[in-house]
């Protein structure tokens, strides 16, 4: 293409937390890059009227499951990518718990290739820490790094064996990547399907003790002290975990963490009707845990928000609570959910919210993204913070409908998602 492609986003409230910028301005994109932010006049550009909208760096989700390869009936990289841009996400990180697991360079390359072909959102992926995510032998981390993996995790399970985890962290010292952990000590909550507490007792369902999460997190923090490798705790769910992260950060350790929408919006009361749409791992906890997570977000202890978008077939979610798979598909409505959980009750403001969804998660995986800095790649999300809409899972681009938010009336509607200077979604 010899023609220069220009897009001018006019009159929006430009929120670029990395640059401390929050005012009404225009954004000019030329080719794939941010050309200018301010008062811009350019006759030759395609104009997007962003009046009344927030214009921010493209959103980044560090935790999605696109199920490919292996469970393409639930999601594919193609359908997941379309869901991502509909949710305003210009970059997502795919988890490696596919079938087979992403545990070698070929698989990493496959994910990236499918992502490029989908041509919607940037697809990153994490590789498995151990072969086949069995928690026994290290996977070929180095070769996966060469193929573009930006981190490693056995997500879906934690690495149970402390020696294996220590070895992984030590080995990772060779690379500039993050080791990400689904903290769950399976000796403490192996067969649990919900939070262990009064509700699990009266429902007669096996519970997962909060300690199962906290014990592994605490252990890992000790291992990080020894290795000083970047460590990311996924989907924090308990007040105890918040305390451990707080202290680790105070000690200056390179740890980060993420929080999902559902752990901010629901307590384990939600499962009282055995509705499997509320079956997630880690499980929904208590009101006190939600408070702890919110105050950690307010205090800046939490680094990023991540959906843990986990699509499943309706037929699987129709199973008994004991047997049904864990997860919620929420990528397409995530922004509105965070607004409901955090902005509407006044926990944080727009700028803080956007920070948690842009440059901060970019920092966790060590990519130079999530800003509107002039000259940077033009990933931009435009949304109307006041537009109300009803979440309708029937309209999801995702192949799955396991979403307890169906029918919710929410605000903050994605208008346009621009990835590398191309409009990939507009509503």
């Amino acid at each position, binding site marked *: 293409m010899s023609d220069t492609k220009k897009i001018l986003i006019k009159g929006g409230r430009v929120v670029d937390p990395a640059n401390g910028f929050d005012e009404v301005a225009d954004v000019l994109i030329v080719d794939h890059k941010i050309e200018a932010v301010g008062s811009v006049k350019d006759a030759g550009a395609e104009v997007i009227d962003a009046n009344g909208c927030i214009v921010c760096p493209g959103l980044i989700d560090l935790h999605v499951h696109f199920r490919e390869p292996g469970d393409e009936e639930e999601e594919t990289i193609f359908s997941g990518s379309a869901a991502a841009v509909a949710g305003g996400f210009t970059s997502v990180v795919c988890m490696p718990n596919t079938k087979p697991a992403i545990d070698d360079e070929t698989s990493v390359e496959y994910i990236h290739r499918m992502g490029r072909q989908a041509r919607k959102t940037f697809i990153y992926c994490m590789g498995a820490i151990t072969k086949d995510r069995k928690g026994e032998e290290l996977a070929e981390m180095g070769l996966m790094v060469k193929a573009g993996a930006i981190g490693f995790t056995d997500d879906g399970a934690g690495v149970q064996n402390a020696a294996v985890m220590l070895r992984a962290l030590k080995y990772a010292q060779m690379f500039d990547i993050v080791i990400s952990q689904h903290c769950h000590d399976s000796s403490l909550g192996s067969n649990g399907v919900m939070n262990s507490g009064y509700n699990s007792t009266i429902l007669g369902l096996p519970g997962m003790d909060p300690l199962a999460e906290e014990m592994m997190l605490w252990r890992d923090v000790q291992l990080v002290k020894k290795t000083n490798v970047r460590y990311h705790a996924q989907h924090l769910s308990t007040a105890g975990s918040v305390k451990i992260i707080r202290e680790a950060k105070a000690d200056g350790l390179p740890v980060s963490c993420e929080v999902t929408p559902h752990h901010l919006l629901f307590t384990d009361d939600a499962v009282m009707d055995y509705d499997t749409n509320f079956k997630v791992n880690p499980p929904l906890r208590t009101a006190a845990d939600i408070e702890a997570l919110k105050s950690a977000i307010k205090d800046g202890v939490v680094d990023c928000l991540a959906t843990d978008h986990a699509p499943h077939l309706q037929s*699987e979610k*129709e199973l008994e609570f004991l047997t049904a798979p864990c997860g919620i598909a929420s990528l397409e409505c995530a922004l509105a959910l965070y607004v409901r959980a955090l902005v509407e009750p006044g926990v944080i403001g727009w700028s803080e919210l956007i920070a948690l969804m842009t440059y901060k998660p970019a920092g966790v995986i060590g990519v130079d993204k999530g800003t509107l800095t002039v000259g940077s790649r033009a990933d931009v999300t435009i949304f109307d913070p006041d537009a109300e809409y009803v979440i309708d899972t029937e309209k999801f681009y995702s192949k799955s409908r396991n979403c307890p938010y169906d029918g919710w009336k929410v605000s903050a509607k994605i208008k346009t998602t621009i990835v590398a200077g191309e409009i990939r979604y507009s509503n």
Partner: protein
Amino acid sequence: MIRRNTKFNWKRKHLLSLRDLSRQELEHIFETAKGFEQFSTRSIKKAPTLRGKVMVNMFFEDSTRTRISFSLAASRLSADIVDFTKKSSSVSKGETLIDTARNLEAMGIDIVVIRHNAGGAAKLLSRSINACVVNAGDGFNEHPTQGLLDVYTIVKEKGSLEGLKIGIVGDIAHSRVARSNIWAMTKLGAEVTLVGPPTLMPAKVDQLPVNVSYNLDDVIENLDVINMLRIQFERMGGNPFPSVREYSHFFGLTVERAQRAKPGMLVMHPGPINRGLEMESEVADGEKSVILKQVANGLAIRMAVLFLVNQAAMQEGKK
């Protein structure tokens, strides 16, 4: 004796749990069961009440007694009975419980009696099909007809539960019988004490409307009723107590312990008994034992339940 008619409109076409039921509903079931008791002594042990109705026993777990009891109850009410037994699978893809039930329903069934290893399975079923659903035990959630027959037995022996001190001994954490017992007994005014090792108590047991004791000898002398739960090795993970021998030593109902109890204390057990483990044979067969009466009452209770859920379904007029 002539009682004035107390009109009560039973509205539930499913019996899923006793936690849902009001005291009045519990009493209505007992009142109804009373009318069914004489059936066992009649020459023709049958009434045409559910003639033309089909009841399916969907049992995903082994059970002989409960299934036979439901079958007998249904046959005494002239319903047709179909048995469906299958080991439940733990895989998430394949034919689901709901598929199975919808298939059966397509053949025109009226009442499903379900036993399943997953808590909430009965409720799941009730949401998915039109037929009446009766929970015959779901995981360690509830076993409502067992709870009803236990309480009915006590009512018949003691007149009422008001103020009675009842001990439930054993594996509370994994017991659906314990849960159904707790809800029904406390609603009817009994003071319930759970007895067992801490490793067999459920999470946040202190929030249940019960007392908890780790020492059977401390409480045995005060009890009016003792319900000895079956130790269900198949449900427990790990080994929650060091050995059967040690368990029996602390929590078994021995002859010696039974002798220290009040003379009128009722000894109950949901069966089948692990003789010598939960209780010694002399106690199980002794004069305090009402274990066989529980079984007999179970039949009347199950007839009452089948009758009532069908009645509610008829009134709902959906079928």
